[in-house]
């Protein structure tokens, strides 16, 4: 079927519009990251898309190398917050995916714990602040405040429902005949899960893990409440980038934002092969 030229023009215009909507903020952040202070904010007509005098000062600044243009001194650099984000988001994702996948498989295959889905989703039914107050008290009692492992644990808990529900959908859609065939051949249930089911679920696992990782990586509220100094994450650290000399340190924030975008992008590219399959897994019933 051939489409009319008008339709094609409309289609491409819509795609371009959607792309612009998605990419302009990223483009702006990238441009801002390389702008010197005078170009951060504009009074009137000075606003430019591209830096007039590109500089790496913003990157140097957040890593503790003060320049003459950025005369405010940071009492801590971005290095530790980046490490904190990486550790807490990664281990939080591992916890959520491991627990969520196991629970989803059990429920999908054995139907045990019928109330589990509702129990898990309860954590997401309340406003985050309401949930966080008792969590703060518990974490304080357990000595987990301001530790990356404490953050990783709570990230694993709060993203567990997502991991569970996503994986359960995938397990439900996966044909059971393959597993049954293996069982008939004498394979144990555990070996079936490890050797047959999980390899087949690589794509759904990858896409779910990416989704969970991004949720953990971009969290602000939990990290703000559960960290004080040593293990503040990138979003919390970013909020502190302001000074009386220059107001908001837009360039420094953009530079850090650009760095913060790297891990999810790398992860996305690394699992790209599985991603498309993951998001379409089970779309067609056999």
């Amino acid at each position: 079927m051939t489409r009319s030229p008008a339709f094609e023009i409309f289609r491409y215009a819509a795609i371009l519009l959607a792309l612009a909507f998605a990419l302009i903020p990223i483009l702006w952040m990238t441009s801002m990251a390389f702008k010197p202070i005078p170009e951060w904010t504009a009074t009137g007509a000075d606003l430019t898309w591209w830096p007039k005098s590109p500089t790496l000062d913003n990157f140097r600044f957040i890593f503790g190398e003060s320049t003459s243009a950025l005369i405010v001194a940071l009492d801590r650099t971005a290095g530790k917050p980046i490490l904190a984000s990486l550790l807490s988001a990664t281990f939080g994702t591992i916890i959520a995916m491991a627990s969520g996948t196991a629970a989803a498989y059990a429920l999908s295959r054995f139907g045990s714990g019928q109330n589990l889905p509702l129990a898990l989703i309860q954590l997401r039914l309340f406003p985050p602040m309401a949930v966080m107050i008792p969590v703060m008290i518990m974490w304080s009692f357990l000595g987990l405040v301001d530790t990356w492992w404490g953050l990783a644990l709570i990230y694993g808990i709060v993203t567990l429902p997502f991991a569970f529900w996503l994986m359960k959908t995938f397990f439900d859609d996966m044909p059971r005949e393959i597993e049954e065939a293996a069982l008939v051949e004498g394979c144990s249930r555990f070996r079936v899960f490890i050797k047959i089911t999980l390899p087949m679920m690589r794509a759904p696992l990858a896409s779910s893990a990416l989704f969970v990782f991004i949720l953990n990586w971009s969290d602000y509220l939990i990290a703000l409440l559960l960290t004080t100094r040593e293990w503040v994450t990138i979003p919390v650290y970013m909020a502190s980038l302001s000074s009386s000399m220059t107001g908001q340190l837009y360039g420094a924030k953009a530079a850090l934002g650009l760095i913060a975008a790297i891990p999810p992008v790398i992860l996305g590219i690394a699992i790209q092969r599985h991603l498309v399959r993951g998001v379409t897994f089970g779309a067609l019933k056999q």
Partner: protein
Amino acid sequence: MTNMIRVSRRRLLASGGQAVAAIAAVGLAPKFIRPARAQAADALAPGMIGGPTGFEGAERYQYGPDTPEGRAIEAVKELKGAGKAPSRIVLGLSDGSIGQLTQPFPAGAPSIKELWEKETGITLDIVGVPNGQEFTKTMQDISTKGGAYDIYAVEWNRLGDLAETGGIVNLDEYVEKHRPEWDDPERGYVGGQKGVSLLNQYRGSTYGVSLDGDFQVWVYRTDLFNDDAEKKAFADRHGRELALPATWAEFDEVAAFFHRPDQGLFGSTDLRNQGWGYTNWYQRYVSMGSPNQFLFDDAGTALINSEAGVKATEEYVASLAHHSPDAISWGWPEQYGNFASGGAAMTCAFSNLPKFLDNPANEGSKITGKIGSMLPPGRAIDDKLVRRSVLWLNLSASVSAQSQHPEACYLLLQWLGSSRIYAWMTANPGGYFDPFRLSDFSDPLVRQTYHGYHMDIVRETVARTVPTINYPGATAFHNALDENLVAALTKSKTPEQAMADTDREWKRIARRVGEDKLLEAIKANKEAWPTVLDPIGT
């Protein structure tokens, strides 16, 4: 064969030894062979037992044994001798204020932290708290029994709320024992005992030590106000000379005149956002009566749901016309950044604005040398001008009830908040702590950093400043007012509705707090309100 090879082993060892001795002498010399001038700068003045050294005028900040600073240090040493002092004290402090304690100032001086640690041997561990999160972090530590800090530093008017939680220590015993002399008529707080009561006490007991002077002060652009073309244009349009606004009506007129968003210039950028904007509503409201339009009457009845409250709110909303279109979301970082780039004709900010923006070291500021200060606008009532500003934020430090060494913590605060150390600290451009003690306004180092023209206006503004609510329930009272004012700014409520709803919520809060407690606090708060009236035409 080269010459080097011909050198004997004995000669080589002898030369090496001489070289090592020479290098060691050069390296060690400064320790023992000091020029007379350097030694003098590093020494304490006669009779002094402590304080900074290493810069010209350091003796002004040094102290003898019978001063609040000297008594604090000596008492710490006694505690140490008795084994009752900690090895470290953890101070939670807003990120932007840390520099004043950790960065040496002026050149040659130690930092505040270094001096404390040198004189007491107690490590001062400063934990940064994101600006604006001070109260949240403190309440979090209190409610979870986290024990992350020995000392909290939060807005001064939260003392009542914190004291009611039992999370901070009553300091009366230590104040009586170590005599901080906060009400000293020459070096103490503005207003003497009334000032002490306002800033450090709750229901007659000391719970905090003020470490700030956040009197909101008006500044303007001298290059615009002194420009002949601007003067002529203003006179042509309004039939009067361009001058600093004395009344709110004049202020709105001048702000509208300079408001040229297409040229990147706003008339005024005094804040309108949630959490801060209501301080600028305060200024318009409290100047509605002479000597003051109070928030509550003596019987504890709220007065804001009135003609004065509605008119102040109407003005407050109408003034958005000469602000940034983003005024409702602008906080001080945006305000400071915009003013530094020459984006506004007038603004009202912390007293430190000229310290940061009229500063040759701030290469990003386009307005260095172009800032002037002015008294707050007011209203003509009974042939007098009622000009009022407001005290808002103003960090005050309190000792955590979870601290194992409350007395040592208090002694740190007595030392830090005393006139000599505080003046030296507030002069440091590395942070947000601002002058508030009588001795600060005349201190040469403070005047150098804050500028003489500004300090004189700050002192006069202090005399015309009303305190914000510091009664029990202060947070709830302010939140109710704040939310309704934002609703009025966003046009989701009329000014009448906003005031009526605030009034209703305040009644509910008052019932919850308890009227007896409230009446006592209202009375104490009112005693600190100013009575200064200016002649018309000034």
